[in-house]
């Protein structure tokens, strides 16, 4: 087979990160050497995964690699498998890209911290853990990687040890995160007890014939565990603390990549292992949780006074979109959800990096203390606008393309099931989208526009090495939004097909015909067809926009001819208008904004602020309650 050589790539991609994690420690205080090693590792992993695009995405191969060549014996998987189908590769690419960009940004960014020695060790451990989860074909291996990832992330959250908030956030993260880890471990143990195997493919072949109350409990545990890792409602408050306190490049990973492993886990558990997504009760549960995450977190975000905390709440809100879309169990829903997953990684990464740039330049991310930075950091402001437009779903940026698919998926689901509830889900999605826009206008007005604070008179634009990763992310935000067709053809289509085609995954690992022999799989499904309820052609839009922009420019240039000149000097005429009074510093920002909205929803917003008390005990109670409710729900409706 011509693909023989590719078999080794996935495991090498994972190993690179872990090897790199230990080698950078050897570099000690030699910063250049350390950066070279870390950079090389990240680029090698990225290129290894990119080289898999052709065999896996285009030609539809599924790569199986048995560690130590322990192949299945008599239909039983006894070794650890690395199994890469289109879904795994999709998430793997997302991880590798985010890690590479965040890593290059960190080279300069973390020089401000005194003790930056262990940073890259933890950073690469986190990356390796995440990569291990998405490429692994073994349930226990996933759990191990989950722990590696969680502890690296906890360490990175507390990286700025001088900051008491960081230590507190890390503690909360550790405690609440361990609920998730425990659930996953318990679920794994139960599944192993039932199936006597840990191989994902074999479990998914055996489970349909072995569903009993224990397995329902195991499902509930695994679902809650991965849900906790994706910070879905009600696990969201710890995300806000962790993202807010961690260095920005780590927030990119926690928000863009770490949470995606939770989503990936939920897909693997619900669509592959237990194949419960066919049940309308499971669809309802996932959509309901998604909508709650979406709406609760966006309203919490509107109330925040810290740039990064605000972004953190938006992360969960966007995860809500992804969960909702995945809960629909239709081809367009899954494709839309996965599309949003990659878009979220890109635009949220970009936004966290701009927040980091603001912190680097001014030393704070507190919205009430900033203002007018666009004059000093024009490029960062422009990049922020790209990120803000993407996340708020302003065409033609990528957030719109995926949200638009999710709207259609929910609305089509409503027509298909005849249930108006799904139409209301569409409404919730749109309202969340406009609230997202509002909170980014708040950030724009508070941080980048408005009046410049006197103390930031000498602020400088961030260094080039930090701007380049941001520009790359911005370009990707634009391109992924501009070519949804190509995205669907090369990434989303194969990944969606992989989600729906469990039998192919099983056969690839266990030998051809294994899935059919279990008698629970009819045959391979045809390529899923995406049916669209509407049309959106971003390229044509852009062409029209450019043509008309040229026409307007020509007209205005022709009409200029000396009159209507733009003037810019520093005199009374160019001072800010104060109704005839003497000019003074006056910046309308942050908490001053959106009074009418806050006033009308004061009951709800006040309740939400009080509920998010910041006490770890409360959040643990929420987590345990969620676990109990999900378990009860599964027992009643499954």
């Amino acid at each position: 087979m011509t693909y023989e050589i590719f078999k080794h790539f996935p495991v090498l991609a994972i190993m690179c990160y872990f090897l790199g994690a230990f080698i950078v420690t050897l570099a000690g205080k030699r910063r250049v050497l350390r950066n070279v090693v870390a950079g090389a590792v990240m680029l090698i992993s990225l290129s290894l995964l990119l080289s898999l695009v052709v065999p896996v995405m285009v030609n539809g191969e599924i790569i199986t690699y048995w560690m130590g060549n322990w192949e299945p014996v008599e239909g039983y998987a006894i070794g650890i498998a690395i199994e890469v189908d289109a879904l795994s590769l999709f998430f793997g690419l997302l991880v590798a890209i985010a890690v590479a960009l965040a890593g290059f940004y960190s080279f300069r960014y973390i020089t401000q911290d005194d003790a930056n020695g262990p940073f890259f060790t933890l950073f690469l451990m986190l990356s390796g853990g995440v990569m291990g989860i998405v490429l692994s074909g073994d349930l226990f291996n996933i759990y191990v990687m989950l722990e590696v990832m969680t502890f690296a992330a906890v360490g990175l959250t507390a990286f700025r040890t001088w900051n008491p908030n960081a230590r507190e956030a890390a503690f909360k993260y550790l405690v609440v995160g361990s609920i998730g880890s425990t659930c996953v471990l318990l679920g794994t143990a139960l599944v192993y007890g039932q199936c006597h195997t840990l191989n994902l493919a074999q479990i998914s072949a055996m489970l349909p014939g072995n569903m009993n109350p224990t397995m329902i409990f195991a499902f509930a545990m695994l679902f809650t565990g991965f849900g906790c890792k994706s910070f879905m409602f009600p696990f969201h408050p710890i995300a806000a603390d962790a993202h807010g306190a961690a260095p920005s490049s780590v927030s990119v990973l926690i928000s863009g990549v770490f949470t995606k492993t939770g989503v990936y886990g939920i897909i693997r558990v619900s669509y592959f292992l237990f194949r419960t997504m066919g049940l309308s009760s499971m669809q309802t549960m996932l959509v309901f949780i998604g909508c709650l995450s979406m709406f609760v977190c966006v309203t919490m975000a509107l109330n925040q006074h810290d740039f990064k905390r605000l972004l953190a709440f938006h992360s969960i809100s966007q995860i809500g979109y992804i969960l909702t879309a995945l809960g629909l169990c239709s081809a367009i829903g899954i494709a839309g959800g996965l599309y949003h997953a990659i878009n979220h990684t890109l635009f949220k990464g970009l936004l966290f990096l701009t927040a980091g740039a603001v912190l680097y330049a001014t030393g704070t991310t507190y919205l009430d203390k900033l203002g007018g930075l666009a004059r000093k950091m024009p490029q960062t402001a422009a990049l922020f606008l790209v990120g803000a437009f993407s996340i708020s779903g302003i065409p033609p940026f990528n957030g719109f393309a995926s949200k638009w698919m999710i709207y259609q998926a929910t609305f089509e689901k409503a027509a298909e099931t005849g249930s108006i509830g799904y139409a209301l889900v569409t409404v919730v999605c749109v309202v969340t989208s406009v609230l997202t826009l509002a909170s980014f206008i708040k950030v724009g007005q508070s941080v980048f526009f408005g009046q410049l604070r006197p103390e930031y008179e000498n602020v400088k634009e961030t260094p080039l090495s930090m701007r380049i990763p941001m520009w790359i992310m911005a370009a990707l935000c634009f391109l992924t939004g501009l070519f949804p067709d190509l995205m669907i053809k090369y990434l989303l289509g194969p990944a969606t097909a992989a989600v729906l085609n469990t039998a192919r995954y099983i056969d690839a690992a266990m030998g051809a015909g294994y899935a059919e022999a279990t008698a629970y799989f009819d045959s391979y499904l045809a390529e899923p067809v995406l049916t669209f309820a509407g049309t959106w052609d971003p390229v044509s839009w852009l062409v029209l926009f450019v043509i008309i922009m040229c026409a307007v420019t020509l007209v205005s240039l022709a009409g200029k001819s000396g009159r209507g000149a733009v003037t810019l000097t520093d005199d009374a005429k160019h001072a800010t208008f104060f109704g005839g009074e003497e000019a003074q510093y006056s910046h309308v920002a942050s908490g001053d904004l959106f009074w009418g909205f806050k006033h009308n929803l004061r009951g709800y917003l006040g309740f939400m602020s009080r509920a998010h008390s910041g006490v770890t005990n409360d959040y643990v109670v929420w987590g345990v309650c969620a676990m109990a409710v999900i378990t009860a729900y599964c027992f009643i409706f499954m």
Partner: protein
Amino acid sequence: MEFLIKIVYILIFPGLLFSTVFGLWLAGIDRKVVARMQKRVGPPVLQPTYDFFKLLGKETIVPSSAARHTFLIAPYVGLVSLVVTALFIPIGGLQAFGGMADMVVILYLITIPSLAIIFGGSASASPFAGVGVSRSMVTIMAYELPLILVLLSVGRAAGGGLVTFSMEQVTLYQQLFGSFLLDWRLIPAALAMLLVIPCEVGAHPFDVGEAETEICEGPLVEYSGAPLAVFKLSHAIKMFIMTALFAALFLGGISTGMVWLDVVIALVICTAVTLVCMTLLHAITARLKVEQVFKFFWTVVSGLALVSLLLVWFVD
């Protein structure tokens, strides 16, 4: 030939030139009729056009504390995206660029001009603009909920058992089965849409974001010269686009067989809708407070739209 026709669509009708002329004319009509209703003589119908050209010739002052690039670019981005949106809305069955953007895309495209005003004002660094930005955003939040409910109702009704977002499908359905305004189930949605239009355009009594007497036109306070002219023009074109959207959604069934006549009828409808939902409301109401606007839209108007959605969903 094909290419030339496209260029004509883009630059002349219904693109740049036509939407400019017609939008400014609508704005003039609006002002004239309001004046007559208030027993004033009022300005000539072409006054907004005169104002536009006068402003173009004026000096553009950029406040020294403004973020210059955003301040100057925002008006043009808003205007251009608005004109592009005009190409996607069927006018009397004539679709310049059908099959490129559906209802939901249009919902998002029409927020770009509002965003342009918001970020332009934000970049001017004026506290008046800050207040205006906050208020404009609250009005966007206010009307977005009823607007999506209206679109979903229409999408359900036009889907015939299924659902659709496509504007062509909506037009086609109405040409076959009659305009939606005559469908009793969709009348509440039409009413809601008539209330959404003035809010989206920023007309009385929902113009809290640009309240001249309170916050000196909010986001526009520091604008002068050509950028101000462009914003005023965008405002006028928005009147045209929103009324055309209403015509396409609820009166798309009018078809005489002659395209030019259909277009003329559609433009008459645009004018009539402007007179009803902007001029009449302007003449008889005073400006609401921002929290009243929000409450009104999330309760009464959304309620109306929701009633329609329920009716089209459950009543055949």
